């Protein structure tokens, strides 16, 4: 058990070796074993995501409640802890209605991929030493690639609904997401410069003595803001500004497709927390406690900040949002990158 917490890489390698030895004794080729081992990895990863996301939905409601001086869900379980389960069961039994004017194929497809893409981020995140599903050399690039994909599915979902509000919400979302993607990438590049690598494992390792938040304070703030916008969190939650747009791109969605979008969004939130943790907060590093615990603590701290901001600040107007990005955040990100590289060279 100690090994599991404090030396997870050795633990995992031990299991791998054991299975491989067993497989060779039975006569299964090594490559097939490696492939088969991916299945438990996937199960664990998915379980991790599902648990956390369920917890997050509950947490959001609790945080919102307490900020607004009320309790939030209280009846299901201890302090309403079972509320997400109840929601899930309820959604499972609801009829998935697709209206006649809807492009059915895309209608069902976009939430599916929305979730999948959000999930993909986790396969390059090092949760603990050695605990990374795929240690890509261009991990950072991969993260931006898949998280950028989500805007496609938002747009597709809004477009296929055949509803003016949906389309408008989707358009806004896309304008916002792609706009903030640029400073997001630029401020992350500062971190990559410090680490000299785009591999997330290396980035975590490079923060051994000092977290990047210290070296890159401006980058951290910019990244945080851009992440908020990327995840469509308040004050940048224009896509579903229910006062203006009914439900944004989700207007026509119901039942499981709706739940999948919902799930996707919270997965995205979790991913944002994980990315910030990895890039700026030293990843799993920390004293005494096991790495995975450290990772979760930092991640939840970030997510709590997200929620705090969402329920504290009013929503920004769409033009302000875009101008804020192009005229303020982006130049600052460029400046940050320039300073970082200059300091590194000199």
């Amino acid at each position, binding site marked *: 058990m100690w090994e599991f917490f404090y030396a997870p890489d050795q633990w995992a*390698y031990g299991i791998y070796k054991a299975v491989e030895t067993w497989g060779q004794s039975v006569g299964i080729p*090594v*490559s*097939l074993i*490696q*492939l*088969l081992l*991916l299945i438990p990895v996937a199960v664990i990863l*998915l379980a991790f995501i599902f648990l956390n996301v369920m917890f997050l939905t509950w947490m959001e409601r609790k945080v919102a409640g307490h900020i607004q001086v009320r309790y939030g869900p209280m009846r299901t379980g201890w302090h309403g802890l079972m509320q997400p389960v109840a929601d899930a069961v309820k959604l*499972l*039994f*609801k*009829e*998935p*209605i697709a*209206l*006649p004017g809807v492009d059915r194929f895309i209608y069902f497809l976009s*939430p*599916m*991929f929305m979730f*999948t893409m959000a*999930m*993909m981020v986790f*396969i390059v995140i090092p949760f603990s030493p050695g605990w990374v*599903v*795929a*240690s*890509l050399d261009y991990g*950072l690039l991969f993260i931006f690639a898949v998280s950028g994909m989500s805007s496609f599915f938002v747009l597709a979902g809004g*477009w296929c609904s*055949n*509803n*003016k*509000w949906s*389309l*408008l919400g989707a*358009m806004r979302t896309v*304008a916002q997401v*792609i706009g903030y*993607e*640029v400073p997001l*990438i*630029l401020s992350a*590049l500062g971190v990559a410069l410090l680490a000299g*690598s785009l591999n997330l494992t290396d980035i975590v390792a490079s923060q051994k003595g000092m977290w990047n938040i210290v070296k890159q304070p401006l980058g951290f703030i910019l990244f945080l803001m851009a992440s908020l916008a990327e995840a469509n969190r308040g004050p940048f939650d224009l896509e579903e500004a229910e006062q203006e747009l*009914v439900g944004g791109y989700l*207007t*026509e969605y119901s*039942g*499981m497709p709706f739940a999948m979008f919902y799930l996707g969004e919270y997965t995205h939130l979790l991913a944002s927390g994980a990315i910030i943790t990895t890039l700026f907060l030293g990843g799993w590093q920390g004293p005494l406690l096991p790495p995975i615990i450290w990772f979760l603590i930092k991640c939840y701290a970030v997510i709590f900040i997200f929620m705090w901001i969402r329920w504290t600040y009013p929503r920004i107007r769409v*033009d302000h949002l*875009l*101008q804020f990005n*192009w*005229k303020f955040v*982006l130049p600052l990100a*460029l400046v940050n*990158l320039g300073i970082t*590289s200059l300091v*590194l060279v000199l």
Partner: protein
Amino acid sequence: MFTAGAMLATLLAVDLGDCLKGVNFLFEFGKIAFFTLVGVLLVGLIYFLNWFLSPKTVPTQLRNTAYECGDPPVGSGWARYHLSYYPFALLFVVFDVEAIFLFAWVAAFKPLGLFGLIEVMIFILMLVAGLVYAWRKGVLKWV
């Protein structure tokens, strides 16, 4: 079963031989393909459950109406969106694509040194000039 697995393995990765020792580029991407598949299958499964468990109602005229704040819908659902989105998309393309080169530069930052820095700075300067141009030309104004 083994044959199928081996085929799948071949499809996903070229050579799984010693992937734990060094990172096998294609195998890592094979994992990505695998997880995409997993995600899609999982959601598909949930869809199936939902379809299996949910009640089926008979569609009526009212139920088939798009939701527009309770009013009967007017005009096409595919409304024309505002052209103002377009310049932003263009700007995004410019800067996002710029990032490709920056990634490459970051990956080779140390060997390139000052020379690379100057080149990238010139590159960024030109992009900034473009941004300033767009700004001053009023592209960033939301009309």
